[in-house]
């Protein structure tokens, strides 16, 4: 998954470099953001509460 996401980031940059339409470039960026966010959610397995007691 990580490799695919980096590949997607590279593809997004290539789309930016070439004269690809703005919608495609921005669409690719948002798709990558969603993919990274889902990957992060997958790796956050515990709760977010710190429950520190000192």
């Amino acid at each position: 998954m990580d490799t695919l996401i980096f590949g997607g980031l590279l593809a997004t940059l290539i789309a930016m470099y070439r004269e690809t339409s703005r919608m495609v470039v921005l669409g690719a960026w948002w798709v990558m953001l969603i993919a990274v966010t889902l990957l992060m959610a997958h790796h956050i397995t515990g709760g977010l509460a710190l429950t520190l007691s000192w």
Partner: protein
Amino acid sequence: MATIESLLPESTPEAAQPGKVQYWFACLFTVGWAGVASGGLLQQFARGEHPCPLCVVQRMFMLLAALGAAYIIRTALLRGSVTGRHYMTGWGLVLVAATGGSFAAWRQTTLHILPGAKGYGGEVFGLHLYVWALILFQVSVVVVGILLACSHATADRGVPATGPGPLRAAGLFALWFLGLVIAVSMVAVFLDEGFHWFLPDAPDKYRFFHDAGILD
């Protein structure tokens, strides 16, 4: 009798005008975040420290932030002008990515917050990489906020970067450097991950080489 042509400036404005500050900063920002991500790669290759899954997620957010600034560069390179909407789109992408990266870095920081916890990986200038990431993501948000607040003086519409010159050279360098860092990151994480879907919690070897029987 004055014609409309005589009222327009004949020479292109100097590249260093204050109105080009946001373009120049977009170049610096792109190179800067790509540089920070390459610092993580250096830590990986020079010190042999394998990045954990959340470290890799932070690298992705860094590169997404760099791509936000790259959007402004790209607009100038293709059109020779950057409208307010383009500046706002680029910096908006940066703010979203920096916020996501901040969250990932905060999460990893809190995993090692207990007194006596060693933390993950080595330290750079006394701080772990994820703490540096948290600081830099937050600094980015503040700097972009200041830049947007000063847009009247720093966001010229005319950015003549379609022809040869320092504006185009800086923009192309930023995009190519970013591309190089993304490509190296992709190869590095592939070697770490191999043909598995996810990285293990605490990677200690290059799984591609291990699975291929090249290394133990």
